[in-house]
C-alpha cells in the first residue's frame, strides 16, 4: 500500500531525510527506530503532509497514487492517520464535535451516509472502551487539560473511530506510564487487521514487547541503515545505537577510500 522511494525532505533548508526507501504491505507492522535527530518524526510528518517540511526528492506511492500531491486532509480521508507525538490542544472545541466532524468527512469521502450526533454517540461509546477512557472526556475540549497519557489515548481513540488503512504512530509510547502503555498497545492490537498497516516510530524497544512488529528498521542520519525482524529491536535495546553508527562510519570510510 505504501512505497517510499529515495525520499528527501528538508525543514527550513536543512536536509533531514536523505533518501528513504520503505515498502509497507497491508497487514504489516513496521517499527522505525533510531536515535534522536535521525529523522523519525520528520518521516511521520512528511507522510501526513505537514506544511513545514519540504520534499526535495523521491516519491511516495499510496495504493499507487502520488501521496505527496495530496493535501493533508485528503490523505486523512484516504486513510492515512498520524498519531501525534505531541497532540495539539484545541480549546473550545469538544472532543465529540471534532471526532464526529472528522468521522463524517471520511464517511462522505467513502460515499457513506453521515451520522447524526445520536448515532455517532453510540459509535463513540463503543470505541471509547478500546482505550479505557472515561466518558467525560468526550465532552471536554480536545486534549485541553489532558495528561500526557490521556492525550495519547485520545489519539488512539481517534484512530479507532477513523479506522485508517495506514496508521503512523509517532513516539506514541514516550512518556507513558505502564498502564497507559498497555492500553495504547492493546488499542493498536485490537485495531490491527489483515487490511491495514502500522508504522510505529519509536525510540525504545519496550513498545515492541506489547506490539509485535513484522519488520524493524533503523533510521540514522535520514536514511534507513539496517532492517530486520523483531530480533533487531532486541539487539538495539542491548547494544544501543552506537554500534550501528560505527558500522556506517566504517562502511562510509571504506566507500570513501574506495572512491
Amino acid at each position, binding site marked *: 500500500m505504501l512505497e517510499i522511494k529515495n525520499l528527501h525532505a528538508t525543514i527550513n533548508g536543512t536536509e533531514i531525510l536523505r533518501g528513504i526507501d520503505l515498502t509497507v504491505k497491508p497487514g504489516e507492522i513496521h517499527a522505525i527506530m533510531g536515535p534522536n535527530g535521525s529523522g523519525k518524526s520528520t518521516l511521520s510528518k512528511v507522510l*501526513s*503532509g*505537514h*506544511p*513545514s517540511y519540504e520534499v526535495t526528492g523521491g516519491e511516495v506511492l499510496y495504493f499507487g497514487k502520488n501521496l505527496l500531491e495530496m*493535501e*493533508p*486532509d485528503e*490523505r*486523512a*480521508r484516504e486513510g492515512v*492517520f*498520524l498519531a*501525534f507525538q505531541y*497532540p*495539539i490542544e*484545541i*480549546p*473550545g*472545541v469538544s472532543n465529540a*464535535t*471534532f471526532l464526529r*466532524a*472528522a468521522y463524517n*468527512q*471520511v464517511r462522505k*469521502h467513502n460515499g457513506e451516509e453521515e451520522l447524526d450526533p445520536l448515532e455517532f454517540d453510540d459509535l463513540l461509546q463503543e470505541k471509547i472502551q478500546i482505550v479505557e477512557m472515561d466518558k467525560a472526556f468526550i465532552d471536554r*475540549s480536545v486534549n485541553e487539560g489532558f495528561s500526557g497519557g490521556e492525550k495519547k489515548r485520545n489519539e488512539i481513540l*481517534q484512530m479507532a473511530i*477513523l479506522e485508517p488503512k495506514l496508521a503512523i504512530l509517532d513516539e506514541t509510547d514516550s512518556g507513558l506510564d505502564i498502564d497507559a502503555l498497555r492500553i495504547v498497545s492493546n488499542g493498536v492490537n485490537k485495531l490491527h487487521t489483515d487490511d491495514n498497516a502500522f508504522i510505529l516510530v519509536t525510540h525504545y524497544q519496550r513498545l515492541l514487547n506489547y506490539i509485535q512488529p513484522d519488520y524493524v528498521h533503523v533510521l540514522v542520519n535520514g536514511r534507513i541503515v539496517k532492517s530486520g525482524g523483531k530480533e533487531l529491536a532486541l539487539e538495539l535495546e542491548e547494544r544501543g545505537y552506537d554500534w550501528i553508527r560505527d558500522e556506517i562510519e566504517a562502511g562510509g570510510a571504506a566507500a570513501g577510500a574506495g572512491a
Partner: protein
Amino acid sequence: MKAELSKTKSAFADARAAFAETHADATPNWLAEKRAAGFAEFEKAGFPTVREEAWKYTNVARLADAEFSLGDIDGVDIALAGKSIPFYAESEGARLVFLNGVYIPELSDLSKLDGGIEVQRLSDAIASNGDLVAKHLGSLAGSEGRGFTALNEAFLADGAFIRVKRGKAIEQPVNLFFVTGPKADHRATFPRTLVVAEEASIASVVENYIELCDETGRFGNRTYLTDAVAEFIVEPGANLAHYKVQHEGAKAFHIADTRVSLKRASVFTSLSIALGGQLSRHEVSVAFGDEGGECRLSGLYLTSDAQVADTHVTVDHAVPRCESEVTFKGVLDGKSRGVFDGKVLVRQDAQMTNSVTSNKNLLLSTDARVDTKPQLEIFADDVKCGHGATVGQLENDEIFYLLSRGLTPEQARTLLTYGFAKEIIEGIKVASIKSHLDDVIAARMAKRTA
C-alpha cells in the same frame, strides 16, 4: 472638512425642522425642551473627531459626510418585511417592532404579557406613564459633549419602554426589533429604550438592530444611520439580563449608547454581539450606586471586509463591595478593524471591589487590525482588580491537527474560530440568538474559502 461638517449639520437641521413640525402638537413640554436642548448640544458638540481620545481609532468622517433624512415606511410592504426579519419568528415573549424607526403594531405582540411587566412603545408611555418616563428618560444618558447621544435626544420620538414590576419574575425575554428595511437608503433612525427593573424583579431584554434584505434578496446595499440610546435602571435586588444583537447592513452606521445604573445588591448581565455595519460603535457605561451590585458585560464582535467595530466600556465603582466582569472577544477578517476600550474606575470609597477585564482578539487575515486598551484606574486600596488583552492568529499546528483528521480547511477554520468564540457564545441563553450566530459564523467561513 470643516465645511463638510457644517453641511451635515444643516442636513440634520432640515430634518430637525421637519421633525419639529410633525411633533408639534402632542408633545409634553419637558420632552419638547429635551429635544431642543439635544439639538443645541449636537450643534455645539458636532460629530466627534479622531483628535478626541475616545474616538482616536474610529473615524466617523464618512458618516459625517453622508446626508440623512428621517426614516419612514411610505410604500413599504409591512407584511412582507415582517416575514423576512431574521429570528423574529423564533423569538418567544413580548415583542415591539419598529421598521425604519416607525412602530409597527401589526408585527408587534404584547398579548403574552401578564401583569408583572409593562411593555409599551415609548410614545405611548410618555402619554400614559408620563411622570415615570420624565423622571428616568435621559437621567443616565447625559448628552453633554456627546454628539450622537445629543442627536438621539433631538429626534427622540419613539422606542421602547419596559417596566418590570416590583418583585416580579418574567421568564420570557422581551424582544425589541429595530429593523431597517426597504426605502431606507440615506435615512436615519433614533431608537430609544428605557428599562426600569423595579426592586427584586427579574427579567431579560433583547435589543435587535437588523437590516432586512431588499427586493432582490441582497443585504447591505443601503447607507443608513442607527443612532440608539438605551437606559437601564436596575433597582435594589433586581436582576436584569440584557442582550444586544447588532446585525446591521454592510454599509450601515450604527452608534449605540447603553447606560446602566445599579442600585443596592442588583445584578446586570449584558451580552453584545456586533456583526454588521461599515462602522459600529457600542458604548456601555455602568455606574454602581450602592453596595453589593454585580455587573457582567460580555460581547463578541465579528468583522470582515472593511468593517470597523468599536466597543467602549466604562464601569464606575463609586461604592464598596461591587463586582464587575468585562469579557469581550473579537474575530476580525479581511481589512476590518476592531477597537476595544475598557475602562474600570475604582474610586476611593469603593473598597472590596472585585473587577476583571479581558479582551481577546483573533485575527483571521494579515490585513485585519485591532486596537485594544483595557484600563484600570484605582484609588481605593483594598480591591481585587485585573485586566488583560491578547491579539493572536489561528495556530498553524491546530489547523494541521484538524486537517490530519480529514477536516476540510474551511471546517478547521470554522471549528477553531467557533472554539475561540465559545466562551461568549455559551453565555447566550436565548436559543434564537445562539442559532443565528452559529449560522453567521458558518456563512462567513464558507464565504471566506469560496
